[in-house]
């Protein structure tokens, strides 16, 4: 019989279907509880969780904080600007110091791909990846899967289109790994400069034709266009992007009526998505944010308590 044995969550690539479903089902049980009256309050009582956020983040950091506090843990958040890393301290030394301060687990966001793996080699603590460069964002991938299951039921066989800046997106990678493991048919779409054909070797269909990408999709997952970094090199302008690849009322005509829309935030209204559409019933954006708490509770609980679970 399978059982949960991991004490870190570095990405979704290596997770089995059982492990993904274990997190989702644990999150579902947390989501059913009334947070303020929950019996979970004592599950991580006495635990000290350090949020080491070396890159700016609002919703992921806050969601991890709320999740940890909902389980009764103490949470300390350290941001990049406020840490000794700005004084030239290495990640290794920061991590060793954090451990010496009594951390029971570290949640890390970092601009360098692979940095959670590096951290896991330095300190023998549970490490939760909250986003590492363009590599993975497993908690976002899991909350997206959680949200999709709420609306679509079983993931297996569903057609999910991820649209936008795939090249630089950790959200796209985690969703691709997680969704394909659960049996979804994933399409990656966007400008050819942001969706290299090599992604097809990871089990996805790649297309640069918006109609083809959307026509049979059960869900469309939009990604934020990081125009502060990519616009000059990868597409001519935001207005051109919006015209060619934005989700607007025109393209709704060739989407399934029941197809839902997700976005990990922050939104660029009028670029990836027309404002009214973002506020419509199709959009699950706020569901995603809310579900993020239960999913992160499940991740923290499973990783920190893995030794005690059967």
């Amino acid at each position, binding site marked *: 019989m399978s059982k949960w044995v991991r004490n870190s969550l570095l990405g979704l690539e290596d997770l089995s279907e059982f492990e993904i479903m274990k997190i989702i089902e644990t999150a579902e049980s947390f989501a059913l509880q009334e947070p303020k009256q929950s019996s979970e309050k004592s599950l991580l009582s006495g635990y000290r969780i350090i949020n080491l956020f070396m890159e700016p983040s609002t919703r992921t950091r806050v969601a991890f904080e709320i999740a940890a506090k909902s389980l009764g843990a103490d949470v300390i958040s350290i941001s990049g600007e406020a840490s000794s890393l700005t004084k030239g301290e*290495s*990640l290794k030394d920061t991590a060793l110091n954090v451990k010496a301060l009594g951390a029971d687990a570290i949640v890390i966001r970092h601009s360098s*791909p*692979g*940095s959670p793996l*590096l951290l896991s080699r330095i300190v023998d603590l549970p490490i939760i990846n909250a986003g*590492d460069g363009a590599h993975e964002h497993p908690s976002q991938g899991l909350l997206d899967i959680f949200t999709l299951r709420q609306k679509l039921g079983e993931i297996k066989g569903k057609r999910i289109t991820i649209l936008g800046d795939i090249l630089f997106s950790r959200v796209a990678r985690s969703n691709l790994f997680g969704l394909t493991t659960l049996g979804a048919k994933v399409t990656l779409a966007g400008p050819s400069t942001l969706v290299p054909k*090599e992604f097809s070797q990871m089990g996805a269909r790649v297309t640069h034709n918006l109609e083809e990408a959307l026509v049979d999709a059960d869900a469309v997952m939009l990604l934020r266009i990081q125009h502060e970094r990519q616009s000059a090199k990868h597409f001519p302008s935001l207005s051109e992007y919006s015209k060619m690849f934005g989700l607007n009322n025109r393209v709704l005509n060739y989407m399934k009526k029941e197809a839902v829309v997700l976005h990990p935030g922050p939104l660029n209204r009028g670029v990836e998505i027309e404002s009214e559409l973002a506020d419509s019933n199709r959009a699950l954006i706020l569901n995603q944010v809310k579900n993020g708490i239960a999913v992160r509770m499940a991740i923290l609980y499973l990783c920190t308590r893995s030794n005690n679970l059967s």
Partner: protein
Amino acid sequence: MKESLINVNLIGARLLDPLQSIDKVSNLYIRSGKMYLDPPDEKTDSDVKDILLKDHIIIPGAFDMRVHSRIPDPESCETFESLSRAASRGGFTGILTMPDTSPCCDNAGTITYIQDRIKQHSSIPIWVSGALTKGREGHVMAPLGSLKEAGIVAATDCPRPSVNSQIFLNTVQYAKMFDLPVIEFPQDFQLSHEGNAHESPLSLKMGIGGYPRVAEEIAVQRAIAVAKLLEVNIHLSSISSAGSVAALRHAKEDGIKITADVTATHLLLNENAIQYYDTNAKLSPPLREEEDRIQLIQGVLDGSIDAITSAHLPHPSHLKQIEFDKSPPGAIGLETSISASIEGLTTLCKDPYPALVNAFCYAPRRALKLNQHSIQNNELANLTVINGSCKWKYNVDIDNSNASNSPLNNHTFNTNVVYTVANGRVVYCSI
């Protein structure tokens, strides 16, 4: 203290020196550091040691034409003592240092300083290259005439490319006046400067920026065009892509004077070495796909690629125990490159040694216009002796280099350098 000239009988090894038409199992007799193919006429009670070398191969002393000493450099962890010890252990009787020092080798004073340090601390001959451009920045020509007078044997900005095509062309033309070999590191900076790994499905999955093949191939084609135009030889350092090998092959068939080398690590490993973000396997150029590795080996075997190097680049450990994208590229390799090359070449051929002699002995010396070493009567011995059949596990902790950034730690090799003779003196011996 210098070792004395040796007197020894090397018994039963394969002597291999194709330029002298030598490939036979035989004895080699060394007296007062000089080689003799026939037994010297001497009294039988002479005190000469016999070394039995069954399954060993004796080749002319190997030469490594890409070594980053990083001396001087405040961040350097190497000394010429440790460097020459590692080189001797690796079988090298000569090496060429790259100009990426601090201050950089773009002035005669720095060259003279380095040569003084070499004279004081090195156990083997070390040649020095100078920068092609001031500060190795690619914008202003370095004083190549003065640097040649100071003793450099090649000009290069390695491991940086020439970023300005006009300066590159003019510098090659200018160096030609002094018969000074130019070594170009072929890389289109705009296409690769954010790249930490070969651009492939693997790097895409890992979320790390790509250094695509095309970034190298464009620069290779530029160098071929310049070599053709100026009718002068350009040597390309550290070829890594299958497309570059094909371009070199065609250029050579067309009679264009172009030569190239590849690193031993690229003959042995492919990009899978970085799949767990191992900073020790982060190289420049990056390790590429298996099809590239196979074509690099093929290139060495058919002569499209002339030389093999270690690309020895020591980094202190704190610069490798960091995030992958922040870690500088490069690995040490002096002690492993001959064994790694043999293992790599064996992928495609049963007898890698003739190609090895060409790539590690003849081609580098030819490219740098240095005298060839050869196995000849009455010549001062410069020899590399390889045990062709032994298992050993490489351990960075006992490497003679002061650095330990190698992707080959704990790799088990099937061949090993066991004896190195430079200028008639033993500089390394494990038998």
